[in-house]
């Protein structure tokens, strides 16, 4: 996430947590955990339990009790979401797995898909059973070649072991899982855009209402869940909702895979209870690299509002971060040390958003591009102090006025960077600095 990273700094080998209680237990093998190993580790027990001894309502109930929340970023209670599926409909229902992990700073789903794909598949089976779906789509980010390949291998294994297909394990429950590979659009991580894309259209988010649970994929009731969310489901059914819920605070149960990147000593994926504070999390990753001073942290992917170094004593669950003025998002924690230039950091962020806006709603389409052009001008040394106020105004103009939350996601960094590091921006503009060297990189703030 840090732009203009000097070429000389070697890319550290990412740390992959393999001792987490829920998600990362089978992450040890970089070659992946396959059916036999998975089954040996108690795999598919939960699915079997659900299919054989539980009604869909009980499954939903259990998941609700576990206080599992959508870990893709929105944090919507999963059980509640599942319960939105209309019971009486004659239309087919779909389960769509959002594996379009595009948020910069986030790379957790990738490890689930690569190293523990059966956990996901088991989750899919349970979820599909809970909502009565017989077809599940996995929408995988286009750039994820290896994860897609490995998931396909797992699916094939599951089919051959009758964990997918007609009459799963003789329970009479049918489920097909289809992998759909995206084409590289960040916006397709947004659930309605994902659905449109899945239908073959251009990845444009749709207006809500109607919500996907009522009219989603092919106008049928559809549940869209993140990979990580579904991967949690088998644990809940196997170990009980209480155990899962107990791992987190009152509002959210379980653990999360946190992706730590940026200026930490050991970047990587860490599974930690959601109640862990950000400071602890950074310490867990070895602290700031080279013993540098911490400057800022983005706690949940670049759309999340940035936190200053003095704001990191905050728990990483959805509600705490929201109370702190940021968001847990996709769990992508990006750490910036004192050498980071916030102006260029923001430039990099807005460039990403300008690139990735789908171009459907006017505020987002024009706003992201506009902001990007202002930021580019500022970084080129042509900025004016007025630009900062303009940026804030544009950001607030984009916020909350579009079909999906992309525009909000694009607006939040702008607002938080500028309000929290305004002095740095002003200095940058005044000095009209166009080049950045490491020696002077630490902009006075």
């Amino acid at each position, binding site marked *: 996430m840090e732009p203009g990273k000097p070429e000389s700094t070697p890319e550290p080998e990412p740390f992959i947590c393999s001792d987490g209680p829920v998600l990362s237990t089978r992450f040890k093998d970089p070659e992946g955990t396959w059916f036999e190993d998975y089954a040996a580790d108690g795999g598919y027990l939960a699915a079997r339990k659900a299919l054989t001894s539980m009604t869909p309502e009980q499954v939903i109930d259990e998941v609700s009790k576990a206080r599992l929340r959508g870990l893709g970023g929105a944090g919507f209670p999963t059980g509640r979401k599942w319960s939105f599926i209309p019971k009486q409909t004659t239309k087919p229902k779909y389960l769509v797995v959002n594996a379009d992990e595009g948020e910069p700073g986030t790379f957790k789903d990738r490890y689930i898909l690569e190293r523990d794909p059966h956990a996901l598949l088991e989750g899919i089976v349970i979820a599909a059973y809970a909502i009565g779906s017989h077809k599940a789509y996995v929408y995988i980010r286009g750039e994820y070649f290896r994860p897609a390949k490995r998931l396909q291998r797992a699916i094939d294994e599951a089919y051959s072991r009758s964990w997918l297909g007609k009459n799963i394990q003789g329970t009479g429950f049918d489920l097909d899982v289809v992998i759909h590979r995206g084409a590289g659009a960040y916006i397709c991580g947004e659930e309605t855009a994902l659905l449109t894309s899945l239908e073959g259209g251009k990845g444009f988010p749709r207006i809500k209402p109607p919500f996907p649970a009522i009219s989603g994929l092919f106008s049928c009731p559809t549940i869209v869940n993140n990979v990580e969310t579904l991967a949690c489901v088998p644990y809940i059914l196997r170990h009980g909702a209480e155990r899962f819920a107990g791992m987190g605070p009152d509002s959210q149960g379980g653990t999360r895979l946190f992706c730590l990147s940026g200026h930490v000593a050991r970047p990587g994926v860490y599974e930690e209870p959601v109640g862990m504070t950000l400071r602890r999390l950074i310490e867990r990753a070895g602290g700031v690299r080279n013993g540098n001073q911490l400057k800022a942290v983005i706690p949940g992917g670049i759309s999340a509002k940035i936190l200053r170094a003095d704001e990191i004593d905050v728990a990483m669950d959805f509600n705490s971060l929201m109370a702190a003025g940021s968001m847990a998002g996709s769990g992508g924690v990006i750490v910036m040390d004192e050498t980071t230039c916030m102006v260029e950091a923001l430039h990099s962020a807005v460039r990403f958003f300008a690139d990735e806006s789908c171009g459907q709603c006017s505020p987002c389409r024009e706003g992201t591009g506009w902001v990007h*052009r202002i930021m580019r001008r500022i970084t080129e040394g*042509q900025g*004016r102090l007025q630009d900062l106020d303009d940026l804030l105004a544009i950001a607030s103009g984009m916020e909350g006025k579009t079909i999906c939350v992309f525009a909000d996601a694009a607006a939040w960094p702008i607002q938080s960077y500028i309000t929290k590091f305004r002095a740095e921006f002003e200095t940058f503009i005044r000095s009209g600095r166009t080049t950045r060297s490491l020696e002077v990189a630490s902009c006075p703030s």
Partner: protein
Amino acid sequence: MSMSPASQSHTADLETRDMLLNIGPAHPAMHGIIRIVAKLDGERIQEADVEIGYLHRAFEKMSETVDYNGVIPYTDRLNYVSPLINNMGYCMTVEKLLGITVPERCHYVRVILSEISRITDHLTCVGASAMELGAFTVFLYMIKAREFLWELVEKVTGARMTVSYCRVGGVKADLPEDFAEPCRKAFAETRKVLAESDGLLTRNRIFVDRMSGTGVISAEDAVSYGITGPFLRSTGADYDVRKDCPYAVYDRLPFDVPVGTRGDNMDRYLVRMEEMEQSMRIVERALIDIPRGPVQVNPGTGHPMPAAEMVDLGKVGNIVAIAGDSAVTCPTLEGSGRAEHPSIATNEKRVFLPPKEDTYGNIEGLMQQFKLVMFGHGVRPPRGEVYFPVEGANGELGFYVVSDGAGSPYRVRVRPPCFAIMSALSKILTGDMIADMIPTFGSVNMIGGELDR
């Protein structure tokens, strides 16, 4: 009036035959636009039938066919000697209808130019009267002074008579930066000329005899005829719109309202001579009081660039290169740029054209420009009717505008000051000698443009 009963009986005894003399419109003193049919007993006017309408150009009807700003060139041609007052009167009327206010500097600019116009008007009136009495030199001196003043007007408005300077919601351009100095010079010249004219006329018995006791009207009659302006003030009534119903910034400027005592031509001459002095006083004070001129909108960042370049860059969307810069436009648009705009025009976008920089450099300005110009879009006051008077050079110049909410006025009515006087003219002339018609008519300062409209 000036005819004693004795002289009447005297003429009656003679049983002379009345002569019907048709004076005008092709008569040197009638400006080609008025006709007086006089019944003469010798040299004395028994009856005078004043006939107007030779310059009727349907101003009021024409106004209904154009948009609100399109009326302004027509107002130039009402009282064409002091067009700026007409401009101002009309624009303030529409502004009242719209319920908008203009910036204070704009008010001052309008007042300054109005008063300069008033001086030119009085100079013309007094000079022309003198000329018609044979004092040609005085006329030319006054015209010379008027020339200096018109140069001021030209400097500000870009034209001498057909100024088309005010706009609904403001004025076309700000005063030039170096306006005070030429103004001072022009006033010095004007004062010199006034002194000379004064020397040639005021105490000259020939002139005094011609003017005194002729064209007399009482204050009561004047009021009941609806006469205003110097003509009314010559009778001793002190009505002046600028004092009695102050508009713009007249209530902040010091000036006296000169009034006469007898209501004859001499009084009118003296009142006008004094009013010129007072107008200069107003302008001099206004030039001191006027709020500071153009503020650079973006100090330091904007630099002037040719308008064409700005248009071309705007056309290809290179707004970053032109934003905040000022355009070097056609010199006739000087003083209306972005820097001056806030001080000369209301900030109401539905009324006033944007500064040229906005027209050239951003789509909002361009759209505003189009919306204000296209038929049926433009300035649209709400339904309603207003009357707004200003003190014209000849008296109360009132505009009455009715709007039906459309882009053109539903009705524009002008209350031209000399119309009321012309209605009294017949009465004033009767009993005087035919030669008195000249100074009397001259002191009416009838302007065909506003009389017939």
